[in-house]
């Protein structure tokens, strides 16, 4: 039964992708099929997580996992399993995919003339990505993880290069290609690392590696380094982040949402699941990774302070948030793992919401240039309020989901695992905390310039939206779209509502997530303090 559930979670989106592809001549039908598929996958994942989350036992137990020999000569297994760590990310991902596909029903990406652009094929690709992502989260075999990782990457390249920024075809292609080159190179390094681990530990099965492998010696170090490099590109870790701002800002709205909320988590999940077991905290590599993560926190925040484009700003904010995740993992404590997973999930919800909002703003006003966006509190008060909410969540306001992950990462860094220098980590914790202040600074700056503004231009009315006044005339075509859709509409409430509600729920009751993650981390990485 569990095997059916596990296989089904990968098969469902793949099957629905096929189905949608068959009817892709008829756009709306294809999107409809895809939405049904995403919702079914979400429901399926809830069932799976409830079932496997309640049952005890270790991650690799035969009755809790799938193990079919795939290529015997290569010792390659179709090996899937799920615990609290992957369960949290699976649920977040299926929810975000469902929201993203649902949003395509009404707000597909437009081309330069404002017409629709082959939304059906986009929906198909999103489902393929979903299958790849879920496969990566469930994979217990290192090579299988790599395969699913690739399956998720390549369709993303199509999404960015085909449906990206309609006004700048060259830029979106460049962004897409850079994204692919970076991540493919990274995952190739990661694969070599996995092969070295196989040579040392004798298996590709990460559950067995985590249970019995004690990494030591130069080969093990090289393996760990290569895996870390590959994941560092994906996460991304400073200074390998430079593919990210372009990819995230040139992608279509759903692409940005999926990239930020889900695809980055492949990297952070990889750090917890595939890097920590093959790494010894005694190596210098570990504090170096932690230090790079903290550099990323501050660097990302500083970059945000100087950004002139909303989508680029949100993209850079991800660099900072991912820094907290990696810092948590690099403490090699159970608390750090907990922090990493919590921060990953929270970032998925909050940054997903932020990119949705940025996309909605772009739909209405034809731009995400912060120099041109003004007074959203006055023009679209509900959307402005929602943006303020999401910004507060993203800057780590206690009581909302964004707070716990970052706070727990700082707490973990204050008392890292034995063998790691306390002094180093306490300094890192302090610098990371300063990054939180910088994050507040840039979000307040955005809110001040984009949401607020002098009264002369304001038309503070709820129903009537006068967008023409504040914009140059050459944007009138784009503004027309804004006119058609005044404030948050019903479809947008349905799409964004669950993300916002969960942001509050996890902020108020962090135990919902902390407890299963802690149990899973204890079972998976039992040796940690």
């Amino acid at each position, binding site marked *: 039964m569990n095997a059916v559930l596990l296989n089904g979670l990968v098969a469902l989106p793949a099957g629905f992708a096929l189905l949608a592809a068959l009817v892709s001549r008829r756009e709306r039908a294809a999107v409809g099929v895809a939405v049904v598929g995403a919702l079914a996958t979400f429901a399926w994942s809830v069932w799976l997580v409830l079932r496997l989350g309640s049952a005890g036992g270790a991650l690799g137990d035969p009755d809790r996992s799938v193990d079919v020999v795939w*290529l015997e*000569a*290569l*010792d390659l297994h179709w090996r899937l399993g799920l615990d609290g760590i992957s369960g949290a990310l699976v649920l977040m991902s299926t929810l975000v995919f469902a929201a993203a596909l649902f949003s395509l029903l009404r707000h597909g990406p437009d081309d330069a003339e404002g017409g629709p652009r082959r939304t059906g*094929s986009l929906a198909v690709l999103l489902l393929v990505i979903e299958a790849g992502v879920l496969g990566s989260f469930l994979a217990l075999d290192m*090579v299988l993880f*790599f*395969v699913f990782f690739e399956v998720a990457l*390549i*369709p993303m390249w*199509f999404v960015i290069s*085909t449906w990206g920024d309609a006004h700048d075809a060259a830029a979106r292609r*460049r962004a897409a*290609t*850079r994204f*692919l*080159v970076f991540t*493919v190179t990274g995952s190739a390094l990661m*694969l070599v690392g996995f*092969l070295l681990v*196989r040579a040392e530990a004798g298996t590709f099965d990460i559950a067995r590696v985590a249970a019995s492998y004690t990494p030591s010696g130069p080969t093990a170090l090289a393996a760990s380094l290569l895996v870390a490099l590959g994941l560092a590109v994906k996460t991304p870790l400073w200074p390998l982040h*430079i593919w990210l*701002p372009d990819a995230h800002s040139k992608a279509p709205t759903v692409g940005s949402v999926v990239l930020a909320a889900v695809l980055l988590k492949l990297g952070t999940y990889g750090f917890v699941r595939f890097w920590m077991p093959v790494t010894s905290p005694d190596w210098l590599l570990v504090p170096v990774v932690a230090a790079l993560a903290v550099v990323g926190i501050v*660097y990302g925040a*500083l970059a945000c*302070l*100087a950004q002139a484009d909303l989508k680029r700003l949100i993209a850079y904010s991800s660099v900072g948030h991912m820094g907290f995740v990696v810092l948590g993992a690099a403490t090699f*404590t*159970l608390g750090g793992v907990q922090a990493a997973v919590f921060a990953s999930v929270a970032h998925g919800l909050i940054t997903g919401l932020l990119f949705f909002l940025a996309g909605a703003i772009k739909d209405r006003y034809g731009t995400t240039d912060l120099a041109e966006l003004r007074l959203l*509190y006055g023009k679209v008060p509900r959307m402005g*309020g929602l943006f*303020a909410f999401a910004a*507060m969540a993203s800057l780590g*306001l*206690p*009581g909302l989901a964004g707070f716990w992950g970052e706070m727990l990462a*700082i*707490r973990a860094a*204050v*008392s890292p695992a034995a063998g790691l220098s306390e002094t180093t980590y306490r300094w890192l914790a*302090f610098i990371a*905390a300063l990054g*939180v*202040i910088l994050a*507040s*600074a840039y979000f*307040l700056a955005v809110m001040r310039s984009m949401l*607020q*503004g*002098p*009264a002369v231009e304001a038309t*503070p*009315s*709820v129903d009537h939206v006068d967008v023409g006044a504040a914009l140059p005339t050459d944007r009138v075509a784009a503004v027309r779209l804004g006119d058609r859709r005044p404030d948050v509409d019903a479809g947008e409430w349905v799409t964004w509502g669950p993300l916002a509600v969960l942001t509050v729920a996890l902020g108020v*009751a*962090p*135990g919902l997530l*902390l407890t299963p993650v*802690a149990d899973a*981390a204890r079972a998976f990485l039992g040796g940690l303090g």
Partner: protein
Amino acid sequence: MSWVVLLLVVLPFVSAVLSLWVGHRGEVAERGIAVGAAALGFVLAVAVALPHLGDAEPLSHVFAATSAVGPPIELAFHVDQLSALMLLLAHTVAFLVQVYSLGYMAGDPRYPSYAALVSVFTGSMTLVVTADDLWALLIGWELMGACSYFLISHHWELPEARAGAVKAFLMTRTADLGLLFAIIVLGVRFDSYRISTIMGEIATGGFGRDDLWLPALLLTAAVVGKSAQFPLHTWLPDAMPGPTPISALIHAATMVAAGVFLVARAYPLFLSAPVALTTLALVAAVTMFIAAVSALFTGDLKRVLAWSTVSQLAYMFGALAVGAYEAGVLHLLAHGAFKALLFLAAGSVVHAVGTTSMSAMGGLRGKLPDTFITMTIGFGALAGVVPLVGFFTKDAVIGAVWEAAHEGHLVWPWVAWLLLVSAVVTAVLTVAYSLRAWLMVFFTPPVVEPVETPAATPERADLHESPLSMKVPLYLLTIPTVLGGLLVAYPGVAFAEVEHTLVHPTTAVLMTLLVAATAAVVYLLWRRHGGRDPWHPFVLPHPAVDRVYDVGVVRPVRLLARAVRAGDRDVIDGYADGAGATTRGLGWLLRRAQNGNVQAYLMVVVVGACAIAVAAGVAA
């Protein structure tokens, strides 16, 4: 009873959601929800607080706990006499502010979000004063910061409102890091985040003078930011562009009061860390004086009150620093009453005149009789006039500092003496600025200034007293302002341990004489200037600390940010060029695939799979 506490915390949040959700449906709905919830909250607060005053057993209850790594994070409440007093203060002021806002905010299109934020503010303060878990306290603590940010920028079309809101949030949030790290350190040290457990262990356990200095100093940093003490005192006066009822709420019952509350809540920790107490005493001594001088020279009514808050909060910290717990808490309560009264009365003046500049006021005594009476009582209490509450509590503070200077042991004697001198000088300055403001608002003939608001024309025939919804809260607040002194005379009602009265006859007489002498001098100066500003308009330079922050923090950060942005752009382009050669080969492949046909895509996957196979074979 513990469920009532939970309800008391949750209720304001529910009412906030309702306000936002159905608030646009109509006036009855939006007002009914806001005021109804506030009234219910007041009733519940009274029900919770009254049984826990005096020598009653504190109420402790844990609703839920995470069984995560490290000490559990709990939804736990602890209501003792301190919480009870703070609950009464917060909910009384919040209720009166909601009633007052009916009149003050009438016709404001942003009323629903305003009412919702006031509710969240109240709920957050309730959480702070009742929470037994440090993380829960932190949530309330920072939510208040966020609420004040939104409420200060309520009039976001004004540039000073936008700037003030950002400044308030950033300064307090920076200081909040102190609380965050204090919580982490305490958690490591005591293996618990339960406040009552930690304080109990400190009170009973034998901790040396040097054991707990770090968390105590970290808490001091948090408190200095939240309560706007030197050197983080500049955000509070800049927060004045917010609606006046909000100022009443922030200054009297929530935000800044939370800082004093935290010191009182963590008092065993502070008592065991003399370095933190000494720091607090020094900060208080410097702050009360600086703030009073600033209040003396500012020409804006609300800024006078804001600076006076900063100064009065310093009195409370001074009292707590020398070990006078009851005096500090009582001054907090008294200040809550008369500062709420003063701000609401100032709101009434602003409502009528349309500006906060005192030079445009004057001669309002006959036009606003109710405001005149109530505000006079408020200023009297602030200045410390017998027999108003401010006189008694301020005397309790000064008396305690006097004793500490003579025979105290908590802080160094010279610090206590410095504090005493500063407290006395500040008391004199307080009389001076209160009297000046009072004279300028109600007696001085207004200087005709080109003020844009029509209500502020020199004739002001249409000047009118505020509506009933605004007057009633004013009169209600005069009750504790006039009678609150009884609590100082008989503190046993609120504090179980205190048997004796907190009135110090010697200092009381001396201070009364000082007050009278100062008042006489100010009055003579005022007469001498022909009934105008008793000292020539003398504008104090902008606080020097702000300049330091600007040069030392804001500009370097901006520079760095620009450098990062430019650097990133160069690197990205550099990669693009440098990697061009390698990319071109791959790019050619990708361009093949780019036409979107499925064969090409499948090819990539297959080639990848083959690569895996080959690589795996090599490894095997």
